[in-house]
């Protein structure tokens, strides 16, 4: 992929990561990336973290703090 890496903060959803980005665990080990574009969990509920598994939809995650709780 040419061009700079891009992260899209999806409304009420994950962070969509495109481009050349190194994914590491907090201890520095590389996290295996199975596809060019990945979605990173930001609701905290995914069972395949750091990747998204769609669970944000089950828990009514809201990315706008002012809307949190009224799912």
């Amino acid at each position, binding site marked *: 992929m040419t061009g700079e890496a891009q992260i899209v903060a999806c409304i009420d959803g*994950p962070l969509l990561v495109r481009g050349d980005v190194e994914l590491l665990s907090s201890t520095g080990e590389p996290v295996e990336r199975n596809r060019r574009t990945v*979605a990173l969990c930001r609701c905290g509920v995914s069972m395949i973290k750091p*990747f998204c598994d769609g669970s944000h939809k089950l828990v009514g995650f809201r990315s706008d703090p002012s809307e949190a709780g009224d799912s």
Partner: protein
Amino acid sequence: MTSTDLSSSPAAEAVSDESAYQAPPFGSRGPVSEQLLAALRRPTEDAELTLSGFAERLELAIDDSDDMLRDDDLQLTLLILHGLHYGSVVDSDDEWEWHPRMVAARVAIEREFEAQLRERVPSVHFPDPTPEGVAAALFELTKPGPGPSAARFMAKKATEEQVREYVKLRSVYTLKEADAQTWSIPRLNGRAKAAMVEIQADEYGGGRPERMHSTIFARTMRALGLDDAYGTYIDEVPALTLASFNMMGMFGLNRRLRGATAGHYAVYEMTSSIPNRLLGDGFRRLGYGDEVTDYFDEHVEADAVHEQIAGRDLAGGLAEQEPELLADIAFGASAAMTVDGWAADDVLQAWLAGRSPLRVPRTQSESPEKSE
């Protein structure tokens, strides 16, 4: 051949013993598919003979079809006709693909199929032709519900036999996964096209043929002791499941329906991650390993990516470029929810009642009946 007697298929009889092409692994379901399958065993040069009376027979069948979504003969016929474009469905003369009589038959069935879909599928209104507006409307439409579902049944209760039934039904589409949507790529532009290609590149393994989703599914079938050749289980698949597959082929092959493809595909991606986790759990519960569950596990992660791209960039991008397609995007989305919802409900109700959701093939001479 001058006879246009509609009560039998004289052409089929006349040539059946000197056929040039292999019979498919599935049988006909009525007069239209019977004559078509017989004609496809002969070269296009024999069309005058082998297709004698076919157009009339087809017109009658279409006129008589009050519920085309459950019409075995017409849905099988449409699957065979689309199969001429896909390949690997029926062994036949390659010239049939664009033979005018095949194209005419395909379009005649598709027009009535589309009309009945537009009549039956609940209309949903997407208010806003912007990427975020369309994505929000699609996520709202596909919001996971708490009720019983075939996927939950698979996770908790399905037997060895039932999980095989599920995989056989799914194989109609999944052995050709993503191909129907690929028809739409040259029919899209800009952001919507880039989004479709981004999704499809992942569907086709990102350059690794062994990671192609259809290939991973074929491995699941083999690991379950099933045949991964296309069409082996078609005889066991009810018309409604064929209709679900035919619908996306119709959307993909008609440029006019590119909005419906975008809405339909977004719904497929948005209703995939969570159910596929449940399906994988079902196979794990029965003791199966990665060879079987890889397909389902792959979709948990892949479709959590694809649903974001399909909602915002594909369907939303298309709505932004061509706002007049917004109604068709909503139609395609609602059609996917409705038709696949009915098909999944048929499966669940059969299982709950202790029946098989599979179709019992009829012998060739019997006339088709509606499976209400």
